[in-house]
Every structure is written in structure tokens, then in C-alpha cells.
């Protein structure tokens, strides 16, 4: 299998300068990016074995003595390439606020309680089919200083690697039907509506665990497609 990484796929991403998100104007380049051919350097990337992920790293509800407060959820899905093929053995890292919308990070001063039983960090590796699964707590919305009365919709941060350095992705997963979507410049920085909706997980009734946890499906698509397209009718 030889994958290629056409540049035009990047149209899904937000622009680097998006004035509605007030931290972007001083942190985005003003000179043109230099177009270059991808070389072996860009077409390779880190490969990690299962030693990176310890048993239980995928379950954010069992990292402490007691159980965290909040709504227990399963978040699962597939990591695929642009041709729809599962990306096997790739690392996912997640981090998130607790059920009250508070991060354990020292800089987060939102006056909502911390939960001594919740760190909010997890790690998983996809299986041979590109499938991953986390167990966690539904994060709360939280305020931020971008504009008056600004609130981030509830989200889980994701970091994913893929096959090559060019497939690296850091993103955020949202929950369906959040009333804060229309007010959030980070969510709305994605110009195309269809692409934006790919950031929203789907409620997955079929995979809820009765009497235990609701389930959300979040499928992730990374750069990479067949060098030789399949013949179809």
C-alpha cells in the first residue's frame, strides 16, 4: 500500500487567522507559506508499539481511588484514511475538563470544583481495523475570556498521529445538539459546514451499555489515500 497526501484535502481545516478567535491574530504567520514537495521526511512518522499505552489508560474513570462525578460515557470510533481504510495501531491521546467544566491544569481558574477522582487525560491505540474506545465522563461547558460571556461548547481534545508526519492531527470532539455551537468561534472557524459537523460526535444508542453508560461515536479521518485509485463504476 502506498499512500499519497494531496494538499487539496487540507481545505477542511480552519484558516490560521480567524479574528473571531482573538488569540489568532498575533499567532498566525503573515508571510506566505512555502509550497514544497513531500519528501521521505514528511511521508514517514513515528511508529509506536503497545508499550506507549498501559492497560487502563483508555478508561478515565478508574485512575483514582474513587469514581469521578458526572455522566459516565463511552467514546469510540474508527480512525480512517481518506480512502476509508482503518489506520491500525495509531496513538490517540485525549484530555478534557471534568463534569463541571474545570480542567486540572494550573492555569484554569474557572471557579468550578475540581474532582479529586478525575485527571481528565487518556490514551488509546487503534486496533488492526483502526478502532479505538475510551470510557470517560461527559465534560462540562466552560467560560473563557475571548469575548463577553464566552463559553466553549463541551468538548474532548484529541491528538492523533496516523501513518506520516503530514497526517498529524490535533482536534476537538463535540457533542450533538450543543446550544453553544453558534456562538463558538473555534468551532465556527471551520469554514465548510459539512466539515464542521465532522467534529460533532453521534449519539450511539446501539452501543450504550444498559444501566451503565451512554455512548458517542466519533470517527476521525486523517490525510492519506491510495496512490492508484480503485476502479469503480
Amino acid at each position, binding site marked *: 500500500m502506498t499512500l499519497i497526501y494531496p494538499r487539496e484535502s487540507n481545505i477542511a481545516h480552519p484558516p490560521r487567522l*480567524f479574528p473571531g478567535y482573538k488569540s489568532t491574530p498575533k*499567532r498566525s*504567520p*503573515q508571510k506566505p507559506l512555502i*509550497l514544497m514537495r513531500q519528501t521521505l521526511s514528511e511521508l514517514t512518522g513515528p511508529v509506536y508499539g503497545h508499550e506507549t499505552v498501559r492497560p487502563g489508560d483508555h478508561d478515565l474513570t478508574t485512575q483514582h481511588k474513587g469514581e469521578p462525578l458526572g455522566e459516565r460515557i463511552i467514546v469510540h470510533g474508527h480512525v480512517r484514511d481518506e480512502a476509508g481504510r482503518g489506520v491500525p495501531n495509531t496513538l490517540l491521546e485525549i484530555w478534557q475538563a471534568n463534569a463541571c467544566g474545570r480542567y486540572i491544569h494550573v492555569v484554569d481558574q474557572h471557579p468550578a470544583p475540581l474532582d479529586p477522582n478525575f485527571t481528565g487525560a487518556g490514551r488509546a491505540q487503534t486496533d488492526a481495523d483502526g478502532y479505538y474506545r475510551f470510557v470517560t465522563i461527559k465534560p462540562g461547558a466552560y467560560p473563557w475570556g475571548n469575548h463577553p460571556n464566552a463559553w466553549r461548547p463541551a468538548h474532548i481534545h484529541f491528538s492523533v498521529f496516523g501513518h506520516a508526519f503530514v497526517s498529524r492531527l490535533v482536534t476537538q470532539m463535540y457533542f450533538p445538539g450543543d446550544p453553544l455551537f453558534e456562538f463558538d468561534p473555534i468551532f465556527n472557524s471551520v469554514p465548510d459546514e459539512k466539515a464542521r459537523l465532522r*467534529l460533532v460526535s453521534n449519539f450511539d444508542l446501539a452501543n450504550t451499555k444498559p444501566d451503565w453508560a451512554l455512548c458517542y461515536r466519533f470517527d476521525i479521518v486523517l490525510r492519506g489515500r491510495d496512490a492508484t485509485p480503485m476502479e*469503480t463504476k
Partner: protein
Amino acid sequence: MADQVILGLTPSQTVGPYFAYGLTPGGKYAWNDAFSNDLVTPDAAGDRIRVVGQVFDGDGAVVPDAMLEIWQADAQGRYANPRDTRALPNASFKGFGRCGADANGGFSFDTVKPGVVPDPDGKPQAPHILLTVFARGMLLHLYTRIYFGDEAELNAADPVLALVPAERRATLIARRDPDSATYRFDVHLQGDDETVFFDI
């Protein structure tokens, strides 16, 4: 007609201000680091080097909440990835590192100086390290390359550096400390001395 079903990419979103406890906890949180800024393995051949620098924004202010990742070949010019099929000696050197910026926007990597790797035409590329920068206020990470100031001859023939306007090339060259194997590479996200970033 050849046709392929193409799925749209999952869009990027900012790493935000609060990634450190998950991605670069560094002993400060109840979580372990998956990656480190020390890439050196005991069996790694080649010159051991340190790359240090700071990240600055468009006002020249330091960016304390940046995360930097590097990817590089080993000293023989081999990538620890199945796509690199050249029969070159390999070590347990993996070539990937991650560092969270400190309060002064500072970062450092301990590694070995990478060897020469070919471009798509088989022409040698000067030794280089790939660098990606993530931060709050960056909706999509930026991608650049670290070249080495003491490789003037190879740099002059490098096909990627040749794409960069001559007056901006210096932003891609790490300067070697005269007294140690330490190279300095600052990242300017914006401004007169803005670092060259690549569209790949």
C-alpha cells in the same frame, strides 16, 4: 474512469491552553509522559546534539503555552518507519520528540544530528529536523524545518532551502554554539523575522 471514494478530513482545532497535563505532564500532574524531549537511545550512533530555542508571537512576546514536536532521521539518514525501506543500519532510535514550552517560551531537544536523506528525485537533502508548533491561538499547527549552520555546503545544495527566498533562509538555520554541541533555533510565529513555514 478512475474514481475513488474520498472521505473529507476531520478538521483541526487548537490544542488550547490546557494540554500540558495530558500531553506534556512532566511530573507535575497525575499522568505520565508518552514522549520526551530526549530522543537519545543508548545505541544511537552519531553526534549528540542539543537544539534549544524560544517561541515568539507577532508582538515579540514569548509563547509559554506552545507545544513543539520533532521528527528526524538517525545519524545514518534512516527513518524509523516502514516507508523508509533503504537497507541502512538501524538502532532503537525512534526520531520523535515532544516538548512543552516553559514560562519563557523556551524549549530544548536532546538528540543526534540526523544524516542525509534523499529527496523524491534521489538528490541529497541537507541534514534537517522537522518541527511542528502547536499553541493556543493556532487553529492548525505550523510546520517548519531545522537546518544546521555548520552544514553550509549541503545547505547550499538543498532542494527545499532552494525554494525559500534567500533573505528568509536564515530563519531555518540553527546556529551552533562555538563551545558546545548546542544549536539555537528560535521560532517567530509572525513579524519581520517570521520563521519560514511550509505548506505540505
